[in-house]
């Protein structure tokens, strides 16, 4: 078990290291001179050289990378073009997106998993066809269009819900009213993916030998489905949620744009539009690290729950 954890953590560290290099080089590949962006109106070569020197832009690229990653590891992501701390900006914006993402995952799980179970248990029946087809339709609807349509119906026509903006969690009721539509928009795709994965995982479990044994023992159908099949299927589906994190972040970018929520996603788009090097680097580094760390956690939890993988340990 120890060596398995070490190997997984080692692989995650390598991925984090390579990602940080990719982030660093990717930002360097953006067109436009950061010194000119920082200098604003001032295009005097002497001033630009001074700025380059101040920000270390005149040093060799590996030295710049070492300097940047060294500070990043201590929680210092530098300052953006307005002189604000990048780490601070991210810390302010991130909770908004985390709230949106958590609500969406909650909705996705609450809808997707029961639908997947019912669909598998009632395989081939009308309820199975209805739910699989609905899931497929949900997968085919683009987030942002669903958002526009919901604004049109619930905000513009019915005036039931606000069309956007973020209200702090200090006002829980107003906060939820504002978050409801964005969370539904972001959660629909996840619910559809989870329903499909849950259905196929359940079908596989229900066909396994231990289920036949459980039935042969005379256990009730309820007990067979919930105690035996469901437990094994949930383990598989947990990893799917981890892998969906990337899609969730992408979805947050566009959902926040539609509902004008000033979170991490909006910050991403704005930082790229403004060519704010330090900010882009910080954001992408945080997003990629978050993805790697969450998936490492899921992998470790998965192996704890599933002894076969712990022993064999070669699942890649």
């Amino acid at each position, binding site marked *: 078990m120890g060596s398995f954890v070490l190997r997984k953590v080692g*692989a995650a560290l*390598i*991925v984090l290291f*390579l*990602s940080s290099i*990719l982030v660093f080089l*990717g930002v360097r*590949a*953006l*067109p436009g001179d950061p010194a000119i962006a920082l200098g604003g109106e001032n295009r005097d070569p002497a001033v630009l050289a001074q700025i380059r020197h101040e920000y270390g832009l005149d040093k060799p690229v590996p030295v710049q990378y070492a300097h940047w990653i060294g500070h990043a590891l201590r929680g210092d992501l530098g300052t953006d073009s307005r002189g604000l701390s990048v780490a601070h900006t991210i810390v302010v914006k991130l909770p908004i997106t985390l709230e949106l993402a958590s609500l969406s995952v909650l909705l996705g799980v609450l809808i997707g998993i029961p639908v997947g179970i019912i669909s598998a248990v009632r*395989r*081939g029946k009308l309820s199975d066809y209805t739910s699989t*087809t609905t899931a*497929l*339709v949900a*997968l*085919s*609807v*683009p*987030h*942002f*269009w669903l958002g*526009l*349509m919901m*604004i*049109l119906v619930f905000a*513009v026509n019915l005036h039931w819900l606000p069309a956007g903006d973020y209200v702090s969690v200090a006002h829980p009721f107003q906060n939820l009213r504002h978050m409801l539509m964005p969370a539904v928009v972001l959660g629909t795709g996840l619910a559809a993916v989870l329903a499909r994965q849950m259905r*196929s995982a359940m079908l596989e479990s229900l066909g396994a030998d231990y289920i036949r044994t459980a039935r042969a023992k005379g256990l009730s159908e309820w007990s067979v489905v919930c105690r035996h099949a469901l437990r094994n299927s949930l383990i598989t589906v947990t990893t799917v949620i981890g*892998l969906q994190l*990337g*899609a969730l*972040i*992408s*979805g947050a*970018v*566009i959902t926040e*744009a539609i509902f004008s929520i000033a979170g991490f996603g909006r910050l*991403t*788009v704005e930082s*790229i539009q403004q*060519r704010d090097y330090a900010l*882009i680097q910080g*954001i*992408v580094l945080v*997003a*990629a690290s978050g*993805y*790697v760390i969450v998936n490492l956690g899921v992998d470790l939890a998965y192996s704890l729950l599933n002894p076969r993988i712990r022993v064999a340990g070669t699942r*890649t």
Partner: protein
Amino acid sequence: MSYVELATITPRARRRRLLRKRFLRRPLAVAGLIVALAFAVLAVFANQIAPYSYQTTDFNAILVHHSSKHLLGTDPLGHDIWSQIIFGARASMEAGVLSTLLALTIAVPIGLVAGYYRGWIDPVIARITDVLLAFPFLILAVGLAAILGASLRNAILALGIGAVPGLIRIARGEALALREEDYVRAAIANGARDTTILFRHILPNMASTLIVQATVTIPLAIIGEAVLSFLGLGVQPPATSWGVQLSAAQDYLTEAPRLAVYPGVAIVIASLSFNLLGDGLRDVLDPRTQR
């Protein structure tokens, strides 16, 4: 059908006939195929089918409702919406099909090599795939558009690259499983060259999995193109696409909501048709999911 006729059918032809029969028994998959083909026809013959060019402006008919002259009405610039939708299909199909082909071309050889040779190359490729997966697709695409500039071609590049890591994993998994098959072992024992084994034995046998994957990657790319164009990172006006149309419709959400409805419905129908087709093909080609 006589016995004589049956006896002359090769096993391959018999399998094909069986698969066709299984496919035709799935009405939703057949519907998906027909609609997907219809969109392909719209895309290829947009010039012939559309009543107007996407750039034609009719200043006597601005923001009009549907009429005999304008099937779905017009937008604030007097563009015929039905024609815009047809030309939008062209951008969407291009993005869907070309980016999927690009992703397959990059991912399949890499996955084949990783799964077949294993050794040191396999973990190296696995880590690189992990790194690519760690970057949320949209951030990758936004970044690429910022580096390369916003255009349909660059959106296709970004969408293709975004689909690569997933496809590498699938191709690798298939190659890993297929190399243990008896016929591959037999070929190895017979001293066949690696290229022969890879291209004559392994690749053809993973074709059905790849076809299914390609079919379900296309709708992701269609939606991806719409997202990028909506954010102003894909197709640039005056050229049109469903994403561009939705982006323009945002300003008229209260006055003319239909402007936002039609392109969205087009996206949903187009991606749903490919998803239905993909699900049907998976059922037909993969014996494990037989009902």
